[in-house]
């Protein structure tokens, strides 16, 4: 990001720069995520992911016979409303592709804005690539032709988790705890339904939602989990809510298995190490650093070397790599950077990702389906997380075809 003071000076300079640059065709993609405020650590790291990917793509010759990709960062400060302001700015700067992932609130706002904008400005359409916001509504009742999601939604992940739990006979009592907002509610609803279907003998001894990112001391909740006699806990918590929940569990000496979505996020691996729960915390994700795949491992290593820093945070998002790889293929296939044409190619695209596995986009709701990995965090792994010495180990792989669930999406496909 540039640093400068005089607004007018920079505007003139930027205008001149833009004028000179437009002679050299660029395909711009806007990254709209928190770069300041509470979500910034995740937003900043995600931006590094995007920049690293684009550097690689440009080094290999760019897209559509020589055009360069360019990432333009916009800070939405974690707010849905601010996201709209920044997306408008991006559109003004000539950007036709938006990517975002942190926060389903912002995602829904952007998706609806893009749909309305495209409707009111035919010929100037933009596309929205969602790499991490997993509220199922985005590919069900709130779906849109212009939105593409590269992460498995909350229901798909719960299906994968509960399929694994179906075969674990030791599970008798399950406690569900989550954050009180659309995603946490979706997780809870899915957990209840799917557990009843697949393991009617399992007793759900607790079903709890707590305020989002506000609690600093989870010991009362841990006390309740203890009192319920649960042997397993399902949670979609992320960020501080995950780290603190685990910390409180460590303090109270809670001995249960954890089935989570985001136990790999910032700060959580450190908290898990402090609990001492070796290979008892599970997460469901599309990849982790110890999945055997030489190409991806080398890629993750080079990223860690460049951007690891003091916190030693490495590559998180295979899904973003999938997104950009498929985007490049779509651009080259359509031989154009026109969003409508690119969308047509992406809508039902099949692709071989960096793990050598087949992934595919479903045209009816623009969800990408991919292999899901259930992994546990503990000792004895090749790569570790956040300098703790512990890392992820695959417990089960769920093939892409087995992750497919139906959708209620009825999108308006433009002519």
């Amino acid at each position, binding site marked *: 990001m540039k*640093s400068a003071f005089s607004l007018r000076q920079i505007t003139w300079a930027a205008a001149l720069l833009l004028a000179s640059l437009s002679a050299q065709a660029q395909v711009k993609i806007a990254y709209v995520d928190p770069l300041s405020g509470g979500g910034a650590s995740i937003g900043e790291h995600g931006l590094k992911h995007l920049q690293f990917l684009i550097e690689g793509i440009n080094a290999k010759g760019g897209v559509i016979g020589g055009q360069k990709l360019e990432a333009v960062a916009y800070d939405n400060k974690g707010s849905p409303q601010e996201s709209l302001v920044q997306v408008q700015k991006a559109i003004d700067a000539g950007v036709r592709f938006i990517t975002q992932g942190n926060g389903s609130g912002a995602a829904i706002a952007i998706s609806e804005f893009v749909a309305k904008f495209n409707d009111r400005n035919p010929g100037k359409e933009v596309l929205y690539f969602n790499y991490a916001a997993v509220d199922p509504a985005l590919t069900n009742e709130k779906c849109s032709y212009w939105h593409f999601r590269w992460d498995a939604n909350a229901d798909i992940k719960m299906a994968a988790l509960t399929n694994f739990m179906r075969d674990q006979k030791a599970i008798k009592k399950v406690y569900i705890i989550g954050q009180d907002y659309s995603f946490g509610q979706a997780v809870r609803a899915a957990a209840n339904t799917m557990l009843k279907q697949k393991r009617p003998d399992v007793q759900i001894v607790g079903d709890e939602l707590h305020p989002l990112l506000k609690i600093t001391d989870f010991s009362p909740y841990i006390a309740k989990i203890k009192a319920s006699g649960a042997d397993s806990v399902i949670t979609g918590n992320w960020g501080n809510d995950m780290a603190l929940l685990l910390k409180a569990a460590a303090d109270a000496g809670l001995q249960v298995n954890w089935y989570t979505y985001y136990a790999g996020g910032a700060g959580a691996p450190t908290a898990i190490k402090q609990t001492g729960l070796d290979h008892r915390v599970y997460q469901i994700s599309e990849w982790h650093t110890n999945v055997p795949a030489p190409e991806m491992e080398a890629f993750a290593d080079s990223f860690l070397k460049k951007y690891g820093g003091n916190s030693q945070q490495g590559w998180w998002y295979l899904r973003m790599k999938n997104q950009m790889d498929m985007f490049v293929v779509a651009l080259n296939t359509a031989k154009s950077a026109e969003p409508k044409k690119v969308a047509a190619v992406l809508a039902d695209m099949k692709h071989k990702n960096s793990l050598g596995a087949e992934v595919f986009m479903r045209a009816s709701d623009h969800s990408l389906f991919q292999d899901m990995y259930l992994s546990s965090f503990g000792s004895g792994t090749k790569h570790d997380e956040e300098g703790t010495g512990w890392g992820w180990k695959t417990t089960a792989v769920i093939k892409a075809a087995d992750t497919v669930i139906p959708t209620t999406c009825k999108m308006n496909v433009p002519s």
Partner: protein
Amino acid sequence: MSAVIQRGGVLTPWLVAAAVVIVLPYIFSSGSSLTMMSLMGFAIVFALSYNMLLGQTGMLSFGHAVYYGLGGFMTAHALNVIGAGKWPIPLPLLPLVGGLAGLSFAILFGWVSTKRAGTAFSMISLGIGELVAACSLILRGFFGGEGGISTSRTSTLRLFGINFGPQIQVYYLIAAWCLLCMAAMYAFTRTPLGRMCNAVRDNPERAEFVGYSTQMVRFIAFCVSGFFAGVAGGLAAIHYEIVTASVVGAGPSGSVLLMAYIGGISFFIGPVIGAVLMTALQISLSDYTGAWMLYVGLMFVLVVMFAPAGLGGLLLMHRPLLAAGTWRRVLPAYALALVPASLLFVGGVLLVETSHHLLVKASEGSAMRVLWIPYDAKSPAAWAGILALLGAGLLALKHIGPKVADAFHGARLEATSKLSAP
């Protein structure tokens, strides 16, 4: 220029403002400029409504966003209902719904809030603000949970073919409402009630002796302020087409306080200046520097410490000088003052940016550039330069500051004697 000001009537500033507002989109016609001007529009209404409490009646509220946000929610719900039922109500009337919602909630909460004055009032407003913000997750039907309530402004009755899809139409709607509200709030300050608010602010005991119930005055001011805050919220809901629970929280409450105070609470135009400035900073500054929030905080603290009349106050201090024509006297001193000002500004910005770069962007290496001048953030020469700039600036301030103050006071003295001369 002084002659023009003297000859202007009551209506002139308003006509000028209207003309400016109509012409602006032709000068700044890009999409993001239109967006920014729309944002400024309802920020102005919000900040002015807040100043009715703070500047006019002396009530420092930390929870004013409650009425703004609730007005926005009601407007969004109303839009959805109207759209679904296809009622023949045109969009320009919708902010009224927001205003009425703000008024109703202000009546509801205001009766208990305004029982006390001073710090107790501030604390109650804080408590109510946090209460409503915390309720947002419980009352899911009204607040829509974390995803909020979304709506579409093109779903209402279309008059003259205007569907309010394009941003320029929304801008004119917001601008019209903004001017209307500004006129109304200005008129309020001229009414006897408005004057009583000032009296309650300055000397509540004496106001009681004159025969007015201070609680009643504060309550009415609170309700009127809530109405306009609700209008601002309604405009915001129309602009964004989504309202989320964060809009009733501490964020907007804090930011409207910053806007009003930085602009200057003792003058009607102060919050307008503050709203325009803060909106521009909020939108644009984050593009240029990652430390933008630090700059805003720093600016606020400096204003509180050294310019409690706000930026508006600083500008309006010069009114007698302009009227009497003595403003020429201060020009050389002000030009001289540019020296410490620019030294301190450049030095300060460099300090913040370099520290920010070293601390936050460590992975990008220590090479950085400011204003096209590249340098190494770790080199002792750079740091020596920064400290030298700051040191020189402080030294210059110490010497030049008194001269500027003297020049100003001299000019003002001359102006007042000129103006009071028969």
